[in-house]
Structures are given as C-alpha cells and as structure tokens.
C-alpha cells in the first residue's frame, strides 16, 4: 500500500530524467549531471549511514580520490575505462584501511576518523604538486567514448552518467536484496539483535563503508570528466559535511532518500542564489528547519501524513 505510490513517483521521475534533458540549456544539463554524480556518491554513503548506522564525514575525500585517479590516469595517456574501475578499487581499499582502525570502537569514532581523513586528503591534493598539480589542479580531463559512441557532448555525457547511476542503484539494490545483504537491513533495524543472530557487525559495517567509498570513487571519476578539470576545491571538508547532510535530510536507510537529499544539497543552493551573499546562510537555516520538522528525513513525510490521517479519522473518545 505504501510502497506503490513511492515506486510510481520513482518511475515518473525516471521518465522525466529521460525525456526532459534535451530541452534544457547547457547549465541546467550540467547541474542535472552534477546532481546525478552526487546521487551516486550519496547512495554509497547511505549504505554506511542508513544501513550500518555509522556517521561518515569524509565522503568528499573519496570523491576526490576517484576524480584525481581518473584525471591522472588519463593524463598518463590511458583510457577512462581503466581509470573508472581503478577509482572504485582504490577507494574500496582506502576505505578498508581507514575503516578498520576506526570501527574497532563503535559509536561515533568513524565520524572523527573520516572527518580527519577528509582534511588530510585535501592536504595531499593541495600540496603534492608532482601528483595532483597542487591548487592549480589538472586541466583538460577528457570525456570517454563507448563502443565508438562519443560521450563528449553535454547531453550524451548526461545520459552516460544517468546510465551509471541506474546501474549502481541496481547493484546496490541487488546487494541489499540478496540473502547476504539482508544482514545490512538487520543491522539497520537492530544492531544488537543482528549480532546475537551471528552477524559479524564489525565486518559488515566495514564492508558497507568500503562499498560506500567505492561508490564515491565512481562518482568522482564521472565528476572529473564532467567538469573536465580537477582541483582540490570541490573535495573539502564542507562538501563531506554536505554529503552526510544529503543522506540524512533525504531519509537515511531508504532507497530513494539519497536522490531527494542530493536535490537539497546540490539544487537547493542554486535556487537560493537570489539571496546572493546570504544563500549559504539560508541553506544552513533551511537544513535546521527541515530537521526540526522532519527528523526522519524528507521521505518520512508520507508516513507522517498517513499517521496524521489515521489519527484524524479515529473517532474521538
């Protein structure tokens, strides 16, 4: 009953994403592609935050690792199609390495480890000029072509990013649906019971974190080719915070939450541009108000409305 409208809205949204873009101007197309990149990254983060219940505040660092990997690989003359899997694998490995010490202690230690990691990764991007080009970054990152199909155009690249987003979403859904992935859901609903049922909480949490990191790596790879330029700015601590915020604001632990949260995180600031110098302040205030109104995220709104309807229809005693 509750699921069907949600899926219907999902289908309508998907159709809109397929049909509308040719009518958009190039900046709109760019924003929409940018949004999709963040949807991919936050879907991964959602696995860590929403299912494993851990706060991760360094996701932009993984985005950056992905972006720089592709840029560096392509500058060395190799193909984008080598860079993309490399980004994912590299982020997975780094995620394991960072998550292992942090997850030895439960509670919010992962939040601090990832926060520090975000700061440290930014320093590497900024100061290791031989590798990353320092603050001037890496110019002229190309766009790939697929089976002779040139993805260089803005529209073609948009559809490519959309396709990757759908594939990643399907893969994540497959993981969550598999018997093996049911453990993630169990983890979300009641970690202590999950543990007593023989689920190794730490291993699954670590795995969810590493998978989340590799999603960000893929997103970063797409971002590098989208912007065609890589520098440290979009991978700072502020962006890490914003990505975490997107997941929670959208509705953590829900499948469509990240897509909605990324709308808030990527498109809302654009809409608030009319406030000029104040737009980020307005954004911060909007986030606080949203949390106060819907602590469970935007996707808890239907349940909230339904609960209210039931309460209203109940005869007064």
């Amino acid at each position: 009953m509750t699921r069907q409208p949600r899926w219907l809205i999902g289908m309508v949204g998907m159709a809109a994403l397929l049909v509308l873009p040719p009518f958009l101007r190039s900046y709109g197309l760019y924003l929409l592609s940018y949004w999709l990149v963040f949807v991919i990254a936050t879907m991964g983060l959602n696995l860590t935050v929403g299912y494993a219940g851990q706060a991760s505040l360094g996701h932009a660092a993984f985005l950056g690792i992905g972006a720089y990997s592709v840029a560096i690989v392509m500058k060395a003359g190799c193909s984008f199609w080598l860079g993309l899997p490399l980004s994912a694998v590299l982020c997975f490995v780094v995620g394991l390495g960072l998550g292992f010490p942090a997850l030895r202690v439960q509670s919010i230690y992962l939040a601090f480890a990832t926060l520090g990691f975000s700061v440290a990764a930014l320093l590497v991007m900024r100061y290791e000029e031989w590798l990353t080009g320092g603050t001037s970054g890496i110019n002229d990152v190309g766009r790939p072509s697929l089976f002779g199909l040139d993805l260089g155009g803005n529209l073609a690249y948009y559809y490519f990013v959309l396709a990757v987003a759908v594939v990643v979403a399907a893969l994540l859904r497959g993981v969550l649906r598999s018997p093996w992935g049911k453990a993630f859901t169990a983890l979300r609903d009641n970690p202590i019971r999950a543990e007593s049922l023989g689920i190794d909480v730490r291993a699954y949490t670590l795995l969810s974190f590493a998978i989340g990191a590799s999603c960000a790596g893929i997103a970063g790879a797409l971002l590098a080719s989208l912007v065609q330029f890589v520098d440290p700015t979009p991978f700072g601590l502020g962006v890490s915070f914003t990505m975490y915020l997107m997941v929670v604001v959208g509705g953590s632990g829900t499948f469509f939450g990240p897509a909605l949260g990324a709308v808030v995180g990527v498109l809302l600031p654009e809409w608030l541009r009319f406030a000029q110098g104040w737009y980020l302040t307005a954004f911060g205030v909007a986030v606080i108000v949203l949390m106060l109104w819907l602590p469970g995220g935007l996707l808890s709104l239907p349940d909230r409305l339904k609960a209210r309807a039931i309460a209203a229809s109940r005869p007064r005693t």
Partner: protein
Amino acid sequence: MADFLQLFISGLATGSIYALAGLGFTLLWQTSGTINFAQGEFVMLPTFALLAFSAIGVPLPAAFALTCVLAVVVLGWGFKRGIADPLLRFGSMPVVVATLGLSIALRNGVRAGYSAEAHPFPSLFGDDVFRIGRVAVTSVDVGTLAAALVLVLATQAFLARTVTGRAMQAVAQDTTSAVVLGIDVPRMIFYTFAINAILACAAALLIAPTYLAKFDMGESLGTKAFFAAVIGGFNNSRGALLGGLVVGVCENLAAAYVSASYKDAVALAIFIVVILVRPQGLVGQRVERKV
C-alpha cells in the same frame, strides 16, 4: 634544543585553547548526548561579539562579560531549546545534521553580514618576550596557557567538588538514576550548555589575538577540539585537557620538523594511533555496551 622548547611551549598554549573548546564539547556529549558540530562557530561568534562591543567603545572586560551573558542566552539556552531538545529523542543523527546546518549558517552569516576579512584582535597579555637562557618565551603564550589551564582546572573542580557539579556528573553517568535521586536533570543539562558557552567565549578571547578573527576560524578550531576530546577520552572530562595539549604540541613540532603543509593532519595521525593502541582514549574508561 632552545627551538624545541620554544615550539613546545607555544604548542602547549595553542593546545590549551583546543582543550577549552574540547572540554565544552565533551561535557555536552556526556550529559545530553549532543554532538555539536558547530563547536568551532561557537568560538567564532563570541570573537565577533567581542569585536563589535569593542567597536562601540565598550572596554574589554565589560565586553567579555556582556559576551558571556549573550553566549549563555543564545549559544546555551537558545541552542538547547531550539535544536538539542527537540531533536535528541530521535537519536544523534538529526542533531549532527542540524548542527552542521547551524555551522554553515553561522559561518556564512558572519561573512555576508559582517565581514569576510580577518580582523586583528587586541592581545590580553602584551607582546613581551622573556628570555630564559637561550629560550625565548612570549608573554602571549605564557598568559594563554595559564589562563586556559586555570579555566579547565576550575571547571573540573566545579564538577568534582560542588553539589551542582556532582549532580551534573551523576546525570552524565546515568540519567535514569539521577532522576530517581531527585536531581533536576533538565536544569543540570542546561548548566552544561551554559558552561560550554562560557568556555567558548574564553577560547575566543584567547585564540583571536594569535589567529585573528575570521568567519571561517571555526572550521579548523572545531576539528581540533573534537580530536582533543576523543584523543583524551570522550567519556572523561580530564581527557580533553590532555588531548588538547598533545595535539597542540605535536602539531607545532611536526610543522617545524616534518612538514608545515601537513600540520592539520597531525591530529588525525595521533587519533588513529590512539584508537589502535588505546581505543577508549588516553585517560578514558572502557564502556560496556548496554542492550
């Protein structure tokens, strides 16, 4: 050797400011479970309040007193009633996100509404340089360290020695039992928010002369305060002091002897080592999980 001692002492001074901000952070966490990601902005805001009061001709001591009162009302009471109270019953996630939003709003609000520039700030302790043998020590470092230490120790004495302080500790350890014992829990929690606000004002007064008043000064300060708290031991208020000093000193030494560029990564490195070797923090106690 003289260089080393100088770096060590100025590291202690910076570290003691981290400890101030970190102590407030720990107190909020212990008594109410609030994780405040706007902690850095809680120091930035009083800095600008102090500047604003000075600009209209209020002498510094009076400006500081006014700022403290304002901070207790806005950053203590307002923050508790407006954000922490309504959100805490939904777990820690919504509070974390709301405080992240708060930090974005405050930081950019000051930039848009006041100034994006770095403002000089008068020093409390003059700018004398003492020489002990070949070691040169500035009065700012000594004064900052002494003032911060006095404040941290006074806060701890208050927590350990007074009836109110002990009641606050009881709330931190076991809220349910505290209620049963007749402790006014909401009031005790408010006190920690108020103490946090005052510690932040003190940190503002101490850090601004060296690091200047700027809208984004809270970002790195907040991060260091978290690490100070966690490295020392998140469930022990003495931890923040030790953690802050360790971070401040290591940072300064690493910047001089290893690499100045990676100064801000030092806290992370210490943190990773600490959780690998001693997960509960340097002086923290191990907590058994509750079902």
